[in-house]
């Protein structure tokens, strides 16, 4: 067998960002256009601030915004969009209402017209609202049977206490109570151009696209209620919360740790620390609990950014019988990085990964749209990506060790496990105090 050596990498490719063109319309709408003409399509994202919106009504609104206007039914709207290869969808979370769409770039004007039709004329017809209400309730029931949903729900409650982020899915009975009139009022109060950001990415001419938006959406008016969210409270470590799910063949393990927003000076170092710990496949934690021990399939550790705060969430679905050992290894790997600096080669590997995946992430229209709209929602522009890349390139081993010591310390974690309490309560109890609850309580 010939011994072959790994070829070296070629010189790093320069990060090349598309030009970002921006205009604020007289009605307060910010419009951002990014050109990537690789395929003849356009991606659209409309980010409307939605903090503190009524949970059940807000979610119902996102499900019925496209259910019809004074002049068009939902079916007509969908058919008109299809004619230009288009489609729109709407979703809501604790921060924003988001209308997303894709279509043939030749159909941009028409898509914008139909978007305007919905923004200024959504009528929330009684029948359609009733249909969507029933569907949403079924959807919530369905979600409540999913372990990943149940553990997320318990984790948010545990992390956020009384903050609006604590509850992000309404109960079926709350949805049941939502009437069309409430949706119309909520729309009037919150679906407003002031503070909203419309992003277009694709095979478009920047100036023409800005003009097209101004033509189509210039008549959308009104001030948005600010809906400002208080900052998220600090995490309060305490006993592990065990949520009982009898007969579960796996346990869903979650640890929440503190984190900082994208613009914070520690952010790049924290991102690198998280990668070394468990944020990608070649991390200590994944190599340990998957590739060495076979406890789990897809463990992941992610920094989550929201308008009111950031957090780091560590997540793994592990076999019931190894729940205790899996948590032990997780705490061990967090503690090891929080107390000892990473090795130089580990850090370089994580750094290359962070920089490379920035390039990969913006190499498609949809990827660019996702990054640019997440940035825009936090008041940033795509140029921030270059700043962030520079910070990733510069972060030292000391910076990363310091970030790990402050943010990855297991003593700061809020821990929630969803699983069969009868089997996992005792092994988890060996590691520290446990408080057990029934699922959904």
């Amino acid at each position, binding site marked *: 067998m010939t011994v072959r050596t790994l070829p070296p990498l070629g010189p790093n490719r*320069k990060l090349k960002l598309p030009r970002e063109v921006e205009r604020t319309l007289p009605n307060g709408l910010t419009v951002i256009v990014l050109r990537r003409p690789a395929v003849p399509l356009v991606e659209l994202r409309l980010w409307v601030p939605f903090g503190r919106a009524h949970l059940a009504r807000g979610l119902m609104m996102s499900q019925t915004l496209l259910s019809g206007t004074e002049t068009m039914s939902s079916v007509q709207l969908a058919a008109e969009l299809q*004619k230009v290869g288009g*489609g729109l969808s709407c979703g809501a979370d604790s921060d924003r209402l988001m209308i997303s769409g894709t279509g043939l770039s030749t159909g941009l004007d028409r898509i914008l017209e139909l978007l305007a039709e919905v923004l200024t004329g959504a009528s929330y017809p009684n029948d359609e609202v009733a249909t969507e209400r029933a569907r949403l309730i079924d959807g919530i029931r369905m979600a409540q049977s999913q372990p990943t949903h149940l553990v997320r729900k318990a984790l948010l409650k545990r992390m956020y206490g009384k903050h609006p982020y604590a509850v992000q899915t309404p109960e079926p009975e709350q949805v049941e109570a939502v009437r069309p009139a409430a949706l119309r009022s909520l729309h009037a109060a919150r679906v407003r151009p002031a503070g909203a950001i419309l992003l277009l990415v694709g095979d478009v001419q920047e100036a023409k696209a800005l003009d097209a938006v101004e033509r189509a959406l210039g008549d959308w008016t009104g001030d948005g209620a600010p809906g400002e969210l208080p900052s998220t409270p600090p995490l309060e470590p305490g006993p592990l919360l065990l949520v009982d799910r009898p007969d579960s063949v*796996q346990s869903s393990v979650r640890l929440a740790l503190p984190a900082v927003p994208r613009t914070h000076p520690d952010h790049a170092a924290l991102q690198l620390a998280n990668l070394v710990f468990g944020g990608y*496949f*070649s991390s200590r934690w994944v190599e340990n609990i998957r590739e060495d021990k076979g406890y789990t399939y897809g463990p992941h550790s992610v920094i989550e950014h929201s308008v009111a705060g950031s957090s780091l969430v560590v997540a793994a679905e592990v076999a019931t019988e190894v729940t205790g050992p899996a948590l032990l290894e997780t705490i061990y790997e967090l503690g090891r990085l929080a107390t000892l600096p990473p090795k130089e080669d580990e850090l370089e*590997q994580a750094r*290359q990964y962070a920089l490379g995946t920035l390039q*990969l992430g913006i190499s498609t229209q949809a990827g660019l749209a996702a990054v640019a709209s997440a940035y825009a929602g936090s008041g940033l522009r795509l140029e921030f990506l270059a700043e962030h890349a520079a910070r990733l390139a510069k972060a030292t081993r000391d910076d990363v060790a310091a970030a790990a010591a402050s943010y990855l310390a297991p003593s700061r974690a809020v821990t929630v496990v969803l699983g069969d309490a009868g089997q996992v309560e005792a092994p988890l109890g060996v590691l520290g105090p446990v408080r057990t609850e029934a699922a959904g309580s």
Partner: protein
Amino acid sequence: MAAGRSRIPATKHSVERFTLDNGLRVVLAPDRSAPVVGVAVVYDVGIRSEPEGRTGFAHLFEHLMFQGSENLEKLAHFRHVQGAGGTFNGSTHLDYTDYWETLPSNALERALFLEADRMRGPRLTEENLRNQVDVVKEEIRVNVLNRPYGGFPWLRLPPVMFDTFANAHDGYGSFDDLESASIADATDFFDRYYACGNAVLAVGGDLDVAEATALVERHFGDVPARPAPERPSFAEPDLTGERRESYTDKLAPLPAVAAAWRVPDPIGDFAGYLPYVVLAEVLTDGDASRLVERLVLRDRSVTSVGGYLGLMGDPFDVRDPTAMVLQAHLPPGGGVDKVLQTIDEELDRLATDGLAADELARTQARMATHLLRETDAVLGRTLQMAVLEQQRGDPGLLGELPRLVGEVTEEQVRAAAATLRPQRRAAVEVVPGGGAR
């Protein structure tokens, strides 16, 4: 401003094909719109080729291909890809298994090295095998056993629809079969199916054809020549009577149903197959589609309905026999009989009365958007081209799809709908066994 429909745009992908002396087929698809490359290696072996008593083996073996190779220790593959700023994965399908990397383009040679190294031979050790059996079991628990509707319908329809082991068995595998897998099985599987004559390498993105050709030659040129095994026919006769089964999912809160019909050979009769791909969208793409409008919005007899070609949702990368699938989730207490009957009614109406003005054209325009969007990603393009080369010798078909879909006629869609009769249907029903909690 016109409310008219859009012309379906033409797309062009520059594609180079060649075959190395050892039989490895190569596709190069340069596109310099972003400084990234995609590398895909596709082996012509999948779930259908698993031996009896070894369900799930093709997938387990896919995991073993990441556990080190001739010149690489365990974990090295992952570290080299990610340490170059890239991402990787593999996946196992009915008719093929793929391995891929996407990376900044300065790492192209590294990815070729890594793929060539495991094409020469993975390091098959007992320890790695046991470890990956455990990992795969967790994968099955997370995707099937610990969640409602796990494996529905992709693992549940085949045993209803097909009779031969190859087509009907559980592609994720039983725990018993996975646990009895041995190194000898893995060695045999590699020797038989992972021949370079049975593989396609595709490279897409930010590359120069001459340079990439030289790199491919350098790294793959001396992979030992081994011919492709003969591929057996997996053909089965069409159903002659309706088949219907149900099972209780103890975690599921609500009923669901999936129905499937055999469709023409996607390779041998592509012209006959394509109308079904369009039909699935006419029936289920958005609020203006036939079944969403009828079942979801009007009758409220389902909360969602979807339709697609291929049991794994893979219209252009599966061989015969395959199927068109419709699946629906029902509200509490919803009746599956009624839903199936309404679907029959709507298919009948479509076959008899045809499509409304513009209905076909707008569906085709939307399909063009979906197809184009997939090809914007270097990985999407590269993987699809690798499979199209393997199964059809025609990677350029990728760029033709929007146009070909756009050329399907109303008459063809009606004729396709007319074949979806209840007596040719296989259906499987999920009986909810769980409360909401």
